């Protein structure tokens, strides 16, 4: 590339595009916004796959051992009927894909990449090349994970938690290479997430625009910053665990195999030491997204900005000392169990602070029920239900009763679907205009949101009931158990609702692609929001801003501020009168 005639100020795009070519612009891009889009497409593609796997699982539970429509061509030997091993594989991969390749890429990967530089007033991430490596490492891990479906013996089938010794000895699940590939993929994914989080943390600490003090950062950036720190410290523990598991399976080591002096329970400790912070890795960005969207559409400052930031920091600290609540039935010392009960209940306090602050933000606001706002409100309300059922299970005696039942399945889905996925939808609708330069269609948005909200609840709320009724998670056929037969109608109801929930995503897909190519062109600041990304063009060019970076004069939530004639006062707008700026 010998061109010396290119000019600065971002006007070189015409000449630049011809020289760069497709590959450098769209595939091996170093631009944080393109990388964000790549993470989004990766996550959305995997979401279709993970969702279909969930429907397969649901079909088996409602109409056990009948042919699953559409699977006749894939499961030829059984003409579409799930065998127990295939069923185990389906629920294992549903969870693995949804957690590691849908929610993490969309919330942390996509919106972390998109929001952090734009909302802090940086031209790009601190390490653009590392950023590119991060998406391609994660994408490779995803491809490797998909390869597992095609190896002999099928994919991993020991649950997404892959408890040893079930996962450590190939003959126990009958999967050999599937479980190995699961380990290898998550190992690589751990490296990719480390590259990403190092970038996030460095960018937040070192790359903020003039005036962007830590406590002027938008809360979504705070949440992503804390998420990145949790990722940095939690993922390596999983990485070490899956490495040991892989060695046990392939090299014959004895980390988790009692026959050689190993300790199966060790896996649970390693897994949940990662696993509980992971839950907050999945939910914190959605909390940040809600904190971002609620003030914009309530036209009010966020209630308790500092409390919001500090409660996220508190959650991050506490998330390290609660992991034992996943192991109440593992034979742990009751005194230790008691300690984990107490810490788990304490972690509800910062979460409750956040919830009350969201309600305080809405109180007395002039609320606009746009599609992103509806999704953010769904996040808040569903997170409350998921959080409350979490407190049930924090208590050891209750947990022992409902351990490994559909109650926990209901809880986790209220948190990661009701919480994280509604947060992701809110974020997609909210930042779509900035990300792609076009507005989404509000009618299709409503057609997506309302059925999703209704069928989400119809799908997952009855799971509490059948869980307390005794239905265990991960069972192949509930009809095999006499005491579960009387509530089989709930399983049918849940599956029908789940199918409707799947159908309800069609308007989203149509909306996404239609808006991508034919949506109305987005103005600079369609929501009249205050944060810095709305001062950049839609979509922002490479390096985000023209000649000068924006300067930040105030916090991110000055809606209906008395000193402004408008009902919003952007962070980048210089104060009218000279003098000390507001803090």
């Amino acid at each position, binding site marked *: 590339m010998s*061109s*010396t005639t290119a*000019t*600065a100020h*971002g006007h070189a*795009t015409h000449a*630049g*595009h011809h020289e760069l070519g497709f590959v*450098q*612009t769209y595939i091996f*891009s*170093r631009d944080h916004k393109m990388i964000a889009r790549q993470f989004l497409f990766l996550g959305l593609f995997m979401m279709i796959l993970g969702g279909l796997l969930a429907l397969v699982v649901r079909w088996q539970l409602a109409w056990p051992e009948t042919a699953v429509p559409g699977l006749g061509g894939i499961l030829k030997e059984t003409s579409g009927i799930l065998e127990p091993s295939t069923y185990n594989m389906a629920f294992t991969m549903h969870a693995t894909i949804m957690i590691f390749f849908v929610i993490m890429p969309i919330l942390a990967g996509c919106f972390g990449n998109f929001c952090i530089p734009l909302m802090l007033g*940086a*031209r*790009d991430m*601190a*390490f*653009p*090349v590392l950023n590119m490596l991060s998406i391609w490492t994660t994408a490779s891990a995803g491809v490797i994970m998909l390869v597992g479906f095609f190896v002999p013996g099928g994919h991993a089938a020991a649950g997404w938690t892959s408890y040893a010794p079930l996962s450590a000895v190939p003959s126990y699940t009958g999967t050999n290479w599937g479980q190995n590939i699961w380990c290898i993929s998550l190992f690589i994914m751990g490296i990719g997430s480390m590259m990403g*989080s*190092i970038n996030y*943390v*460095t960018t937040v*600490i*070192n*790359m*903020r*625009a*003039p*005036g*962007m*003090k830590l406590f002027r950062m938008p809360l979504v950036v705070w949440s992503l910053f804390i998420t990145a720190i949790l990722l*940095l*410290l*939690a993922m*390596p*523990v999983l*990485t*070490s*665990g899956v*490495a*040991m598991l892989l*060695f046990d399976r392939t*090299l*014959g*080591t004895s*980390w988790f195999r009692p026959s*050689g*002096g*190993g*300790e199966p329970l*060790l896996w649970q*400790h390693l897994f949940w*030491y990662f696993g509980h912070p992971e839950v907050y890795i999945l939910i914190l960005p959605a909390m940040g997204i809600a904190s971002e969207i609620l003030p914009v559409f309530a036209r009010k400052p966020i209630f308790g900005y500092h409390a919001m930031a500090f409660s996220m920091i508190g959650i991050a600290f506490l998330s390290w000392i609660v992991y034992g609540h996943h192991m109440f039935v593992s034979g742990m010392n009751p005194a230790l169990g008691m300690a984990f009960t107490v810490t788990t209940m304490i972690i509800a306090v910062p979460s409750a602070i956040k919830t009350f602050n969201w309600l305080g933000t809405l109180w007395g606001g002039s609320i606009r029920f746009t599609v992103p706002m509806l999704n953010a409100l769904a996040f808040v309300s569903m997170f409350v239900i998921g959080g409350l059922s979490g407190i049930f299970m924090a208590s050891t005696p209750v947990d022992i009763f409902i351990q490994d039942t559909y109650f926990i399945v209901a809880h986790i889905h209220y948190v990661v679907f009701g919480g994280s996925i509604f947060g992701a939808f809110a974020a997609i609708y909210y930042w779509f205009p900035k990300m792609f330069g076009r507005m989404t269609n509000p009618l299709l948005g409503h057609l997506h949101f309302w059925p999703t909200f209704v069928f989400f609840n119809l799908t997952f709320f009855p799971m509490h009931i059948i869980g307390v009724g005794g239905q265990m998670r991960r069972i192949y056929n509930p009809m095999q158990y006499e005491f579960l037969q009387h509530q089989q109608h709930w399983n049918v109801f849940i599956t029908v609702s789940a199918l409707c929930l799947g159908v309800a995503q069609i308007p989203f897909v149509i909306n996404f692609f239609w808006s991508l190519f034919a949506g109305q062109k987005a103005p600079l600041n369609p929501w009249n929001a205050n944060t810095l990304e709305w001062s950049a063009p839609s979509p922002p060019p*490479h*390096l985000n801003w023209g*000649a*000068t970076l924006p300067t930040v004069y105030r916090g991110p939530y000055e809606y209906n501020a008395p000193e402004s004639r408008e009902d919003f006062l952007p962070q980048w707008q210089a104060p009218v009168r000279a003098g*000390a*700026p507001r803090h």
Partner: protein
Amino acid sequence: MSPTLLEAPPAGVRANGRTPPPARPTGGGDDHEGEPGPRRPVMANAQLATMFVIAAETMFFAGLIFSFLILRVGAAVWPPPLQPRLPLGMTAVNTLVLLASSAVMVRAVRALGAGDRAAVLARLGGAAGLGALFLTVQGFEWARLIRFGLTVSSGAYGATFYTLIGAHAAHVGFALTWLAVAWILAARGRVDARQPAALKACAMYWHFVVALWPVIWVSVYLV
């Protein structure tokens, strides 16, 4: 602060061009007069990032070391009967070799501050040489242990030994690669007294890998 921090990217940087944008750290905040202004960052990006890499790696090794200790404490007899004992003397000397490489690294960074490029290159080479010597000795020890019948599949004893020591050796190997890159950068003048971050980051990682070894050595060989 200097206003250049706020200027446009230099001419020649095209949209999504080959050269990454020279994103300069600003670390926003208010200046002493309460006006918004760029603030000098506490640490260069590369060093800050290396700090977080070290934090993550610490968690990785904490996972391995604690798992090892749990198996070690849970075992009735350790080392198990009929298994070879781990060589103490040779590895103690090897520990000193690795610690010496860290000292050489400190002097290399000091030479960079003094602007003495020849000394920087020599000392970086010395640190790398000591690191490579450490790995070689380790390789011979492994070969001997395998000849004595200690393998990865000989129970928790062999499994933990080879996993832990192997994980550390892999990190020394990675650190050596990083050191080679830093050596090339220094040789080409891309790292000097005014832009020391790349070498300082490499040195931080090297010290981390060195400091990790005594912890592993004590828990695996001595405890």
